[in-house]
């Protein structure tokens, strides 16, 4: 490695040459290229028409939707419901504050030189749930209480996903450490917990939480449906998270453990200062994958009658005053999910690049 490594010289790239080499390099590729081009030409036009050109954007009732395209008027009319659910109109500023704080905490994470972005991120992880705990349900500091049965729409999706993500990571790390522990009882508990929760589908967990659990509780004890669902989601997600983190722990060479011990560090410092930082960095893609999966899995709360963003859309597309707005509704939902999942994914890629210390070679 003494000689400086040089990049291969850049080939002159001319469009025609590039196309000949990449798109028309043989009869098979030529056929594929032409086929795909045909599909693009025939589908992009109608899609554009449906989405924008023939679509109806302005108006306030079904009669405004005359064009052959999408009826975005419907989304516009119901947007408030899709975002806030049944949250009272005059109190929606509280949810808006949370949306704003969420943006303030996480958008700067994409901007490298943003001042104090580390602190904003720390606030996002530790402060935001605390603020949300007081602000959204209300009932303290003179805020009017809003029962969780009134939460809904995008806001509910974010509450479920955010709490699920924030709570499952630490629990998952503890479980992963527990599973590799040398203490048989802790190891046993961790293994049983992980294997039991990982072996049941989320839909079953939610169904049990919603339908069976209330029957086993003593009379008068009533855990709210949302809380039951949240606990179920968090525990289920922790089991997955534990296995992802365990993958990272296993990839750390034995020498690291021994070196940390040789420094005279205790168990927690050994893990916290030496092993976990390396292990977690390695499994970022796995962790983010699990986060994104959870974000999308939150839609399953539909089966227990919680109206998340998909639920609010589904409950209104059957409204007979609007004709065939189901496609518009589902496109809207897909868009919401795409924005958030894509955001999470981009952030993780940035994080990976930043934390890359050559372990990926």
């Amino acid at each position, binding site marked *: 490695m003494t000689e400086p490594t040089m990049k291969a010289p850049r080939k002159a790239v001319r469009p025609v040459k590039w196309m000949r080499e990449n798109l028309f390099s043989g009869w098979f590729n030529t056929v594929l290229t032409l086929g795909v081009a045909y599909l693009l030409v025939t589908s992009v036009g109608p899609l554009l028409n449906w989405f924008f050109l023939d679509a109806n954007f302005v108006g306030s009732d079904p009669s405004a939707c005359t064009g052959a395209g999408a009826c975005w008027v419907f989304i516009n009319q119901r947007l408030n419901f899709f975002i806030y659910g049944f949250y009272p109109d005059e109190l929606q500023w509280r949810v808006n504050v949370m949306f704003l704080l969420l943006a303030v905490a996480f958008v700067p994470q994409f901007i490298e030189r943003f001042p104090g972005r580390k602190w904003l991120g720390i606030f996002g992880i530790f402060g935001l749930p605390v603020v949300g705990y007081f602000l959204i349900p209300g009932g303290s500091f003179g805020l009017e209480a809003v029962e969780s049965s009134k939460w809904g729409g995008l806001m509910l999706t974010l509450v479920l996903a955010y709490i699920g993500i924030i709570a499952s990571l630490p629990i998952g790390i503890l479980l992963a450490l527990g599973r590799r522990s040398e203490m048989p009882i802790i190891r046993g508990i961790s293994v049983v917990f992980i294997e039991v929760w990982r072996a049941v589908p989320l839909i079953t967990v939610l169904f049990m939480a919603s*339908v069976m659990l209330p029957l086993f509780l003593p009379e008068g004890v009533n855990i709210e449906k949302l809380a039951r669902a949240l606990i179920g989601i968090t525990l289920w997600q922790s089991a997955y998270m534990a296995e992802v983190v365990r993958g990272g722990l296993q990839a750390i060479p034995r020498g690291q453990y021994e070196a940390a011990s040789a420094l005279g560090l205790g168990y927690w410092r050994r893990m916290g200062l030496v092993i976990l930082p390396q292990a977690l960095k390695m499994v970022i893609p796995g962790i983010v994958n699990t986060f994104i999966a959870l974000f999308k899995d939150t839609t399953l709360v539909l089966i227990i009658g919680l109206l998340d963003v998909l639920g609010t859309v589904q409950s*209104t597309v059957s409204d007979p005053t609007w004709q065939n707005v189901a496609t518009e509704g589902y496109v809207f939902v897909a868009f919401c999910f795409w924005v958030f999942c894509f955001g999470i994914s981009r952030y993780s890629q940035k994080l990976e690049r930043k934390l890359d210390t050559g372990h990926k070679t």
Partner: protein
Amino acid sequence: MRKMRSIALGVALVAGTFTASSVMAATTLKNVKQKGHLQCGVTTGLPGFSQPDEKGNWTGIDVDTCRAVAAAIFGDAGAVEFTPLTAKERFTALQSGEIDMLSRNTTWTLTRDASLGLNFAGVNYYDGQGFLINKGIGVDDATQLDGATICIQAGTTTELNLSDYFRAKGMKFKPIVFDTSEQTVQGFAAGRCDVLTSDRSQLAALRSKLSDPNSAKILPNTISKEPLGPVVRQGDDQWFNIVKWVLFTQINAEELGVTSANADDMLKSDNPGIQRLLGTDGDMGAKLGLPADFGHKVVKLVGNYGEMYDRNVGPDTPLALDRGINALWTEGGIMYAPPVR
């Protein structure tokens, strides 16, 4: 499908034994008053029965049935909180006390009435199961449906009725089960099945959702009786009576010609029936544990049964349902309420 049914059965068994041992003594009214609102279980969105509108307000005949109970207790039709429930979890929510009453398009059957620890407080809509078919299959009567593929919604009495009907007629069918009515109609529209079966009250609305409504038609046959009504927990007779008599009050009000518009004028009426109904005479309210003028409040704030029907499912709504058997007994229907006296 079988799995669903066995889950439901298990839930029902557990629920039955549990509620039998723990009777919630006559405290529902007290609890409701203490909370300051009624907690009412509804669907997650069913046109005409319970569905959120643009503002997120619930509308529908089942919703109004709840509002009427709230109006009777608090004199305020807005003192209700709604809990959207799926078909599978509705009874548990009532048994566990999560809701005070269930008004969720629920069919009154012997099994439900006798083994789930529940009581049906009346009927606010007489429905029946029918068929929506693709005109392309060239069928005019349900008896010609042998071998058809049929789209059904899971967890409802519809499934059972359908298999009963086909077995009785010695015919075969292939069921395709969906979770919500929206998915069911999408499945039908996509050609997954030739026939869609559901309560008749929903068929017209479902048909109007098709991109070409003329490609489908509703068969004349009604294969089941579906009396839909509010449900309460067993073991609290006072609460049972309240829900029952609020509905009867609305039906009686229509019979006596009392509407939300003329309820105030009717207070001066010298018809003893109206006087008792509106609480200007007698102590009907006290017998139920309600304010004396509960009848007046119910009719003024929510309306009589006919108003409730017309507003939500009647001919001027997108569902466009004729009164049919839901008309008063005096007008050829079977809506009949015992007298207030």
